[in-house]
Each structure stands twice: as C-alpha cells, then as structure tokens.
C-alpha cells in the first residue's frame, strides 16, 4: 500500500526533524537495503557502496529539512540522493571505463533477487517488479540510454560517444523513455 508506506515515511521524517534517533533507525531499516543495492549496482564495489549509503544517511540525519514532502515521496527523494551520490563517487573514482564491461542488463522480471535475508515491505517488492517490467517494455534503444545513464552513471555525452549516435538523439530517447515509464507506472484512477 503506497499510501500507508508514504504515511509512515512522513511520520518518520517529522520525528527525524526533531532529532529522534528511533525515526532514523526506522528509515534505515526501511531503505538501507534498497539504497545499498542501488549503490552497489552503480558503483560495482562494496566498499564504495557502503560509503555512499553511509554518507546519504548521515546527510539525511544532518539536514532532514532537505526533503520537501510537498514535492513527492520520501522514497524517491532519498533514493535519488543515494543515486546522485553513487554517480558522483563513480565519476570521482574514474572507474567508468571499467564499469562499462559490467553486465548492464537487469534481471528478468520475476527473477529472484540475489540478496538473501533482505526483508522488505511487500509493496516495495511489487513495485520493483512493476518497474522492471516497465523497463523491459521500453524499446531497446530507449532502455539502453536510460540504463547507461542511471545504472551506469554515464553522462549523455559519454553515451552518445559510446553508442556512436548524436547527443540530441540521446536526449530525445532519454526523455521518451522517462515519459513512457511514467505512463506505465502511474497509478490508475480506478
């Protein structure tokens, strides 16, 4: 239930702003596995991923007011924070070239996550499946630029060079992919 999940996040965030360490632990419990999985995917290294997640949670503790509830879900805010940090870390470490050799494709929809022992809310698991299915429903050329940017941490200029296509085409495909994902993932009004 996204509404219930969002409500819990908002309550934790409210308490966090008051310096409640219990709220911090609750948010860690809810989002550390997702954050670590994302950071691991982007950086490709456990130590770097650990630093990324550490810095993101510490930034959240120090500046909880950076999240504006009127602008969207806490989950999106925090995981974007982790993603940005992970991308910046990768660029700083200059490991882009090595990472291009890594497997870029996502696991098949319905495939099991490799992470054992991760307990997460059923709603998150369902949403994950929906996102993966939506990604696979994109045209190949759109999914490719999206994955290279988001999970590969590459800039659009780098993607254009690597794929041998104009930068404008990368931009157009990226926007088209994001719009289609948005349409597919938008909650229905029913």
């Amino acid at each position: 239930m996204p509404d219930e999940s969002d409500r819990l996040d908002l309550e934790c965030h409210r308490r966090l702003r008051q310096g409640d360490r219990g709220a911090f632990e609750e948010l860690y419990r809810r989002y550390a596995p997702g954050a670590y999985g994302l950071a691991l995917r982007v950086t490709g290294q456990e130590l770097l991923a650990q630093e990324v997640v550490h810095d993101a949670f510490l930034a959240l503790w120090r500046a909880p007011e950076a999240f504006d509830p009127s602008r969207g879900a806490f989950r999106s805010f925090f995981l974007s924070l982790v993603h940005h940090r992970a991308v910046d870390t990768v660029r700083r470490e200059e490991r882009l070239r090595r990472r291009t050799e890594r497997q870029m494709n996502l696991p098949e929809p319905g495939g099991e996550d490799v992470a054992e022992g991760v307990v997460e809310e059923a709603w998150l698991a369902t949403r994950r499946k929906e996102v993966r299915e939506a990604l696979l429903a994109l045209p190949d050329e759109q999914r490719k630029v999206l994955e290279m940017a988001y999970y590969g941490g590459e800039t659009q200029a780098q993607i254009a060079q690597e794929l041998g296509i104009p930068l404008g085409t990368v931009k157009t495909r990226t926007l088209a992919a994001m719009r289609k994902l948005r349409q597919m993932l938008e909650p229905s009004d029913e």
Partner: protein
Amino acid sequence: MSESDHQRIDELIAGHVLRALEGEDAAEAERVLAEHVPTCPRCRSILDELEETAGDLALAAGPAPPPELLLTRLHREIRETGHERRRPVGSWIWMAAAVTVVGLTVWNAVLHTRLSNEMDTKRRISTAMGVLSQPGYRTVSFDTTRKAPSHMRAAFRPGDARVVLFGSNIPDPKPGNVYRLWVGRQGHFVPRGDFAPEEGLVALLFPIDLSRYDEILITEEPAGVPSAEPAGQERWSATIQRAA
C-alpha cells in the same frame, strides 16, 4: 514560451534527474531550474514527475543487505555529532574573533549581544583568538561572481590545519540551497563543508591546511545533496599563492 522550448526544457530536466548532464547542458539545466521552473507550473509538474520516475528506477536495482557494521558506524557518528545541522553554529562568535584580528570594525556590539545565549562562548572566542592571533597568518580575498557588493576572506597559517572563513554582505542562497566550500589542488576539488550566512555574515572555522591547496572555491548547491565535485553555480573563488 514555445512548444519546442518546453521540449528542450523537458529534455534538460530528464537529463538532470538522471544526473547525466555535463558541461553546457548542466549549466543550462541549472539556469532553467533556477529561473524558469519555479515560475512555470507545467515544468514544476514535469520535474516532480520525472524525479519520482527516477526514484522508481532505483527500486529496479534490487535490494542488498548492507554490512552490519554500517548502522553501528552511523550510530557512533550520530552520537558524536548530535543532531548537528549544516548551519554556521557559533558563527557570530567566530566573526567576533575574526573582525578583531583582520581589522573589520563593525558588528562587535551586536555580536556580543547575540552571543550572550551561546554556550561556552568564552572558550570558542578564546580558541578563535588563539588561532588568529598567532604569527604568520595570511588572508586570502575571494573574487565574486555576484554583482552585489559582498566580501569573503579566508585566514590561515601555512602548516596549521585551521582556516577561518569570514564574509559580509553575503546574500542568502536560494531556498533549498546552501553554500559549499571546496579546496582544490591541480584542478581537483574536494568538499569541506556547507554553510549559510546569518543576516549577511559568515564566520566559520574549518579544519583545513590551506597551504596544501592552490584554490579555494564556494559554490551554491542543493542542501543535503552531497556532491563529489563542484556542480552548482560558482559564487566565490580565490587562488592561494605559495608563500615566498
């Protein structure tokens, strides 16, 4: 604004939320996000939607159990720092010390009033005075990209890992932003802390040996969003001359 203009802005926003822009595109996105998006309901909506979609993309990476020691480490650091915010706590104190040494002659009466409620005021002032009154301190003046008159300086002593940053007529960063201090050597910058002015004044102590660097830079960045290299708009910069 034409449809093609909005298409261009949408592309910039998409690249921005994916952290995939660089160079001129990144600069243009920053300008659009600062100047156009806040005034355009359509673009604000697009930004929120694409940010949420980017957040969904994070889920597809799949969860992984973080190292058990990570939470322990966070607990320790939180205990040590308390609920510390990236605000210039005690900046009035540092300003009082800084103006004494560098000859800025205003604010002292105001400062002492403001300081009256601060804890361990005497100790902090004593520390600041101790730092700045030592022989061999140098000051560095910043160039600014702002049109409004503002003055930012840093005081340091080669070999001493402490820098006092002080400024006057410093405008507030945009809502949701902070100023970020960077130090650089041979073009590679590292962030050393965030701050915001209090009523136009800045006075902070940073644990940095500035003599190890050749540049010091202050950019405006989104609050709470760490960055490994300067990404926001540059506000003040200075070159650190090697001592003769």
